[in-house]
């Protein structure tokens, strides 16, 4: 997919300042938003960042990222259930997503365009049905409930605020991985593959290998995001594996701005807050989110950050 193409040097200008602003915003977020919701922003944001590595930077529209989110959630959740400390559970969930991403990625990056979307969607359905059937591990329809929250290094995770700030540290680590991926020769090669696969191949790149590696990084980060989500709520529900999750992450990313590093996090904040407002106002969530999505796809494809940086670039 030819997502929003950006001049490589454009964002470097003032990057440090923007990073500081973003960090400050995330640090005060739980003061203005209920901390559990703020943690949702981090989890969904990281999932969208992970998805955007494929969509915005590699041109692959994955419609199955619920799979890795769910693997992270169930992997991390069941480790917690078996008494693992929080960091180990997160590592385990991420590893589960990574391991499964090897065959999934190997098979799906051979396809392009809409074929890629369809295949990832079908793989995600396999994970969904596995989650539904393998009740010993996943709890089936009931999911995993009342997960323990062991403390770590003197932190008390029963406190919503302490939980948020620990999650923020993990989130920052994930974002750093994404940042390094995008701002590296590898990341530039990915964008070359996205913009013109034939040309990338003719200068000696192996597009297949690049896409596969990007797929793995993306899946791993999505898994980590899934563990954050579970860490925030203390439960895993079957909903994490539903195909709607795969679609929602696309909305979030588009809304925030594809092909921008931090855009998806802004998108996540908008969607999480919107959903919260709607549920308390007793408005039908699907109608409003559906409408937002339709309008975004039709008229606002660059998203919040894409539009903003476009405006700034025009002025500067």
């Amino acid at each position, binding site marked *: 997919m030819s997502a929003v193409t950006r001049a490589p040097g454009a964002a470097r200008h003032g990057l440090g300042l923007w990073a500081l602003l973003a960090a400050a915003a995330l640090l005060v977020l739980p003061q203005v938003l209920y901390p559990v919701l703020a943690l949702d922003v981090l989890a969904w944001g990281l999932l969208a960042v992970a998805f955007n590595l494929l969509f915005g930077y590699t041109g692959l529209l994955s419609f199955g990222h619920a799979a890795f989110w769910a693997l992270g959630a169930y992997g991390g959740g069941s480790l917690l259930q078996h008494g693992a400390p929080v960091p180990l559970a997160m590592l385990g969930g991420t590893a589960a997503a990574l391991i499964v991403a090897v065959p999934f990625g190997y098979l799906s990056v051979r396809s392009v365009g*809409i074929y890629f979307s*369809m295949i990832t969607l*079908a793989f995600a359905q*396999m994970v969904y049905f596995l989650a539904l059937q393998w009740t010993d591990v996943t709890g089936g329809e009931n999911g995993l409930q009342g997960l323990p929250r062991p403390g770590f290094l003197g932190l008390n995770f029963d406190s919503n605020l302490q939980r948020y700030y620990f999650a923020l540290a993990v989130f920052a680590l994930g974002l750093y991985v994404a940042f390094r991926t995008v701002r590296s020769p590898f990341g530039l090669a990915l964008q070359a593959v996205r913009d013109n696969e034939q040309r990338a191949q003719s200068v000696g790149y192996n597009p297949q290998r690049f896409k596969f590696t990007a797929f793995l990084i993306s899946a791993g980060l999505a898994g980590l995001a899934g563990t954050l989500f579970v860490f925030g709520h203390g439960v895993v529900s079957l909903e994490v594996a539903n195909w709607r999750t795969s679609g929602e992450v696309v909305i979030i990313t*588009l809304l925030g701005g594809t092909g921008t590093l931090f855009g998806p996090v802004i998108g996540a904040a908008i969607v999480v807050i919107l959903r919260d407002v709607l549920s308390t106002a007793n408005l039908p*969530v*699907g*109608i409003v989110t559906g409408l937002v999505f339709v309008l975004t*796809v*039709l008229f606002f494809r660059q998203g919040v950050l894409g539009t903003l940086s476009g405006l700034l670039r025009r002025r500067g």
Partner: protein
Amino acid sequence: MNLQLLLIQVFNGLVNGAFYALLSLGLAVIFGMLRIVNFMHGALYMLGAFVAFALGQTLGLGFWPSLILAPLIVGAFGVLLERTLLRRLYGLDHSYNLLLTFGLTLLLQDLVKQEMLSQFAVSSAPYTAPASLAGVVNLGFVVFPKYRLFVIAVSAVICLITWFVIEKTRVGSVIRAATENPVVTRAFGINVSAWITGVFGVGVALAGLAGVLAAPIYSVEPYMGAELIITTFAVVVIGGMGSILGSVVVGFAVGVLAAIGAALYPPIANTLVFILMALVLLVRPNGLFGLPEGAR
């Protein structure tokens, strides 16, 4: 397992297959001709069932008039969507169609849910088959509900007609010409844009038809298309996206295979189609009946 039980499974599989075939046929027509991946297809199937239900509740129309009217209404709705929304995305990457129709799916599902709750005070409703199709038929070796046999027959006939029109008639060749080379086709005095709208309408009407047929079996419910559409996508991928023949053959085959699989090992029922898909893609990345991307 005894043979009779297996035969019943095969017949039930054919019923599911009839729906897969009808839905994936509509998707194949829309994708093959227009290159639109219509994620809404499941929601439009649901809309077909809902319209039939609503026609019955408000106008007292029975199954037979609804079987004609509901697909027409759904088809007209599709035409409206193509003219107003999808049209705007034709110059862009095909993925945007998928995204737009995904958003419309969320919208449509919840709109129908609201409608059912506020107008009819139900969140799901049974829909009865006409009296003439009630009861069972004794096939000699097995007794089978008449209505289910009717569904298999209707689906098979519609699939055959659609295949014939597109592959063997002048109408089909005009459609193919219009999508493969719109500029030249236009030069022959053919209104390409009207044809595209028409094809989309027909594809969508097929989904509406499947919905009406499904209503007496699965009852009417706003999310009835949600899981079905994913299976249908798998069918389309196995058959080869855009292949009319592939969607019909694989639609019925997947229905039967899944039913037999489920009889032998129940937990596999819903996953089998996706396992099949992975296996097929390993051997033939473009599906069983599909052509490589560039060949079109």
